[in-house]
């Protein structure tokens, strides 16, 4: 082999390595600097001049709905550009606080226990913080048990199943709630999310409220019980339940497909997930003063998981939009305001229901939310 050919190859390799190094160096030098870097996929953080452009980040649960809203919003409001990065709720809250994005979306409200609420209020100063529920999604209890068309479960039984205290489908406790149903001797395999998620957080919150004696684990987005079957993402859980005879899991109701959906006891009735039943729960819930901290434009509920009112379904995920009343430029504020208004409007909610299977906000809640969003200047 001639040495000149080698030279060419090596020089080319060096150029390549140097090029990579330049890129890598740039990335790593920016990240250790600040806690919450503005890692919005679409680039530019909102600047004072950026009149027609805002960026948001947060909840993956909302991603499909956000994408639908953005498409319609940009169609109607020509010239405005909204981008949304589904980095996850935690990432969304962090980026909002660091002012990396104009608005955030989170499956759990900002809370004082992690210090985030105070930081978010500070970020919005001299304006005020706006936090409103905009996305409600029922969580279905899905199961795969051939021959069992209908399955009824008391909250306590549900908690025991997911806590691995009830191990077989023909357990007397399940049989008692399902008279006339022939339950097989199959082993129960509870399926949970292996990634951290708002769905898990809302579901464990439900279990800890309705069955505090059984469910003694901390409420968290990370599944607390070891030893169950775990799968990543909603689609992973649905896939695992569909593949495993005897499996039971929890997932966005819109993704349940052909799988059996358990009925859960609410008061004297057996409730199934439906958009109306899910939306109704927020009308019955009280606002949580601890999550609101006296902020006028923050609407955060302590979801009444223990409700006994018929026609409601308490296992829901409630996700919120987070923004400020004032931004650096009036045009930015106007854009955030009109985007929020569209997202919470009946038309926007209808669109989300179509795109993501969410439950539209009730009329009563819409009024309240509109008032809070109206405070954006």
């Amino acid at each position, binding site marked *: *082999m001639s*040495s*000149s050919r*080698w*030279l060419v*190859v*090596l*020089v080319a*390799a*060096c150029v390549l*390595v*140097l090029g990579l*190094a330049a890129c*890598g*160096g740039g990335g*790593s030098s920016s*990240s*250790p600097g600040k*806690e919450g870097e503005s890692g919005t996929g679409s680039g530019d953080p909102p600047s004072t001049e950026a009149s027609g452009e805002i960026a948001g980040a947060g909840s*993956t649960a909302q991603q499909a709905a956000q994408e639908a809203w953005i498409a319609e919003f940009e169609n109607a409001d020509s010239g405005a550009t909204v981008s949304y990065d589904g*980095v*996850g*709720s*935690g*990432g969304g*809250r*962090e980026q909002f606080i660091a002012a990396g994005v104009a608005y955030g979306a989170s499956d759990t409200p900002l809370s004082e226990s*992690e210090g*985030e609420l105070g930081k978010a209020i500070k970020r919005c100063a001299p304006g005020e913080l706006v936090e409103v529920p905009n996305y409600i999604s029922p969580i279905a209890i899905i199961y795969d048990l051939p021959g069992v068309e209908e399955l009824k479960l008391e909250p306590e039984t549900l908690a025991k199943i997911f806590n691995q205290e009830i191990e077989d489908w023909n357990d007397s406790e399940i049989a008692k709630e399902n008279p006339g149903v022939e339950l097989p001797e199959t*082993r129960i*395999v509870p399926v*949970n999310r*292996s*990634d*951290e*998620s*708002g769905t898990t957080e809302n579901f464990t919150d439900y279990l800890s409220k309705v069955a505090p004696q059984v469910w003694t684990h901390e409420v*968290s*987005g*990370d*599944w607390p*019980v*070891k*030893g*169950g*079957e*775990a*799968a*990543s993402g909603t689609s*992973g859980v649905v*896939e*695992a339940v569909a*593949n*495993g*005879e*005897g*499996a039971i899991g929890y997932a966005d109701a819109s993704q349940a497909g052909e799988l059996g959906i358990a009925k859960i006891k609410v008061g004297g009735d057996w409730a199934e997930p439906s958009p109306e039943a899910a939306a109704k729960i927020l009308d019955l819930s009280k606002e949580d003063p601890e999550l609101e901290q006296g902020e006028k434009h923050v609407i955060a509920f302590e979801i009444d998981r223990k409700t006994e009112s018929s026609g409601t379904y308490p296992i829901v995920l409630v996700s919120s939009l987070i923004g400020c009343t004032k931004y650096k430029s009036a045009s930015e504020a106007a854009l955030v305001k009109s985007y929020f208004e569209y997202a919470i409007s009946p038309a926007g909610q209808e669109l989300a229901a179509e795109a993501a299977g969410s439950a539209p906000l009730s009329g009563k809640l819409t009024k309240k939310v509109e008032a809070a969003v109206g405070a954006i200047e």
Partner: protein
Amino acid sequence: MAPVDTTTNAGRLPARASGGRHRRGDRIFGNAAVIAAVTILALLVGVAVFLVTEGFPALTASASELPGHESFLGYVAPLAFGTVLAGALATVIAVPLAVAVALFITHIAPPRIALTLGYLVDLLAAIPSIIYGLWGIFVLGPAAVPAMRWLEEELGFLPIFAGPASITGRTMLVVGLVLAVMILPIVSAVAREVFSQTPRKLQEGAQALGATRWEMIRTTVLPFGRSSVISGAMLGLGRALGETMAVAIILSVSGGITFNLIGQANPSTIAANIALDFPESSGLAVNLLIATGLVLFAITLATNFLARLIVARSSPR
């Protein structure tokens, strides 16, 4: 096969060049080579510095401050265990297979078949890991369920097949198999390259002494290629240790340290755990994940170091 070629030759070239006159081309080449080497080092140091600075808050935090209220060691131990277990399993499955494939291609198959097969094996490396992951959950996992049930019934006395067998097939064993397929091309490419370089004289000598084909392979080809096969295996192990998406999608991670390969409660791996938990993490939880990345970095470095040591010991030449 390309990487092996360039590294061995690049190592020899400067020595040859420095002996001759200093021409312009030599100078450019020499400087370029130095810059490349320094860049690699700088990158490595840069990554290490990033991991240490970002992971530091989690390393120094007390257990009660960390998410999950568990000490850092308690958090990372099952992950490190899972990482090593998955990597070791994949290597144990892949290396014999890769050596067999390489021997077949270089010494047994007729040239035309050998060429095609070589291309096909290399093609395995071109499949993205996410595709392997999907194949794992949709095809291999469900297909492995009856086999794992059989293992539980017949070989359940072994701790690795203790069961109860998973009903979905998302187990450590399936992950090991998928990873083995993923690292097969690397290991077999290295093995193939070195087996085909076995000196003709040695092989002919062995056959002249009356050795059968297998005896010839055993006495000349295998000893000649041993150290390269080991380093190929370590390259493969390195990839298996860091593999993220395939593991994150397939593995049912809900357990601590266990040798049970066919159950539903498996320890996660460090890379997969970062991929699964990072999107919803904030604050100290992110530092914690980066600190586990530092541990992975250390494990990979140690593996490579070990590989060098083994190679250095086992090659008397």
